[in-house]
């Protein structure tokens, strides 16, 4: 029994040593940045057939009004139409960060246009929040939240 315990302890110690050695050899890798981030297509699926999404090949508003490449195809599984867009203009580096903060980043503009286009085609409207009839009062945490929520309408995977 003693031999068994000693053997197990030796095995555990050897395993621990090997793990530590392996860890010391491995460099910690930073999270990979998506190299295609600025050029990826932004997509939504609209629950309407392609001929209703773009009758006669005409893009629907507000997507038609943004400066973007657009493509579309029928969605699999009777889900309607996949519509993709990406801005023609790319802003990189500090300029891109500033544009995102100001809310005029081209990708944000395209994303919002896609979401609103989907809502208009599916429901005939873009729903508004009650926030514009505000009941809230200003607080410090509220200001921080406002900054985050100010951009919340622009996000969304859809």
């Amino acid at each position: 029994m003693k031999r068994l315990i000693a053997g197990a302890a030796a095995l555990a110690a050897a395993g621990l040593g090997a793990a530590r050695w392996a860890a010391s050899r491995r460099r910690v890798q930073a999270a990979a940045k998506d190299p295609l981030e600025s050029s990826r297509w932004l997509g939504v699926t609209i629950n309407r057939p392609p001929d209703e999404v773009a009758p006669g090949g005409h893009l629907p508003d507000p997507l038609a009004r943004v400066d973007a490449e657009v493509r579309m195809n029928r969605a699999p599984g009777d889900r309607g139409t996949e519509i993709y867009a990406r801005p023609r203009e790319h802003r990189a580096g500090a300029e891109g960060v500033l544009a995102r903060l100001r809310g005029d980043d081209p990708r944000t503009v395209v994303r919002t246009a896609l979401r609103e286009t989907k809502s208009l085609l599916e429901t005939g409207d873009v729903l508004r929040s009650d926030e514009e009839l505000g009941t809230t009062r200003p607080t410090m945490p509220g200001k921080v939240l406002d900054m985050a929520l100010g951009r919340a309408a622009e996000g969304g995977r859809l």
Partner: protein
Amino acid sequence: MKALCWQGVNELSVEQVPDPAILNAQDAIVKVTASTTCGSDLHLLGGYIPAMRAGDVIGHEFIGEIVDVGPEVNRHRVGDRVVVCSIIGCGRCWACRHDEWSLCENSNPKPGVTDLMWGGTTAGIFGYSHAMGGFRGSHAEYIRVPFVDYNAFTVPEGIADLDALFASDAAPTGWMGAELGGVKPGDVVAVWGCGAVGQMAARAAMLLGAERVIAIDRYPERLAMTARHVGCEVIDYTSTDVTAELRERTGGRGPDVCVEAVGMEADSTGIQRVYDGIKQQLRLEQDRPIAVREAIHACRKGGSVFVLGVFAGFVDKFPLGALMNKGLTLRGAQQHGQRYIPKLLDRIAKGDLKTSYLATHTMTLDEGPKGYDMFKHKKDGCVRAVFRPWA
């Protein structure tokens, strides 16, 4: 108008706020005649749901009368007495068309928040933070109801307000847990939590043909209410080992379907309560999944667990090994109420489903803060406080 507003963690007050208005052509304005507290409001009150702002009107389970409609409203008119689903659906996106209303893709004007939190956008909810769309709640004299043709249901004559009220949220949420949990005739079903939603889940399981239904809680008055009104078996977890008790009552198998109706502030008598409480307060986990863990452990091999309780973020010590090796099916959702409300109103009218007994305390809107204090601390046997803004 008068409304009950969230002012900060555990702080509510009744305030004068601007009246709601028709903002979209498919909106209606509803004069609220009854609005009830819900266990999920306690997560807002406790500060566990992000994106609340001082002055936000809370409340999401209500009935009332339509007093104004937008120009594109077709199915309702002024004067309709309606019960309104707490979840807002557009009725025309793929999710709504497939009866998954809480996954609506057009009813949350602030999709970026839930997208960041959960990797996808979910439906708007009345009075449930700016992450869920920033819609005002129903603890008020009036409320704006978007896409009213899809979210409001005319209450048939003969159904009293307090019966119809719970068709807004508690009854359809409970029904969904039993139905999507896969309850079928002959099943043994266990339900964690004897609040209004848990009681409705237990009753739904019985109506769907379950042979035995066992509800679990720690409050004697809630256990007694469940036994009396739902007619199922009960277990007090403060005096019993729940898993052992369930095994003993099911021939060693465990329940076929386990419905968790507790949520992120679950309690227990064991070390888990201390462990999860500390981790939650230190923000090392957002939610306490104590009842979910127990449900997964108790469930029979190959069974099904449905999470009805509200969770917001990340949990610790999730028994993935038990889930995988026992071959369990795990599901969850906010309620797809529009799918169930018409049939639940039918069952209420026929007397199959009783709900008004859940309204243990009825009071004015001015008494809102007191109502939430009673509800949160289970004072005087409070299961649901109902506010009557025009009483």
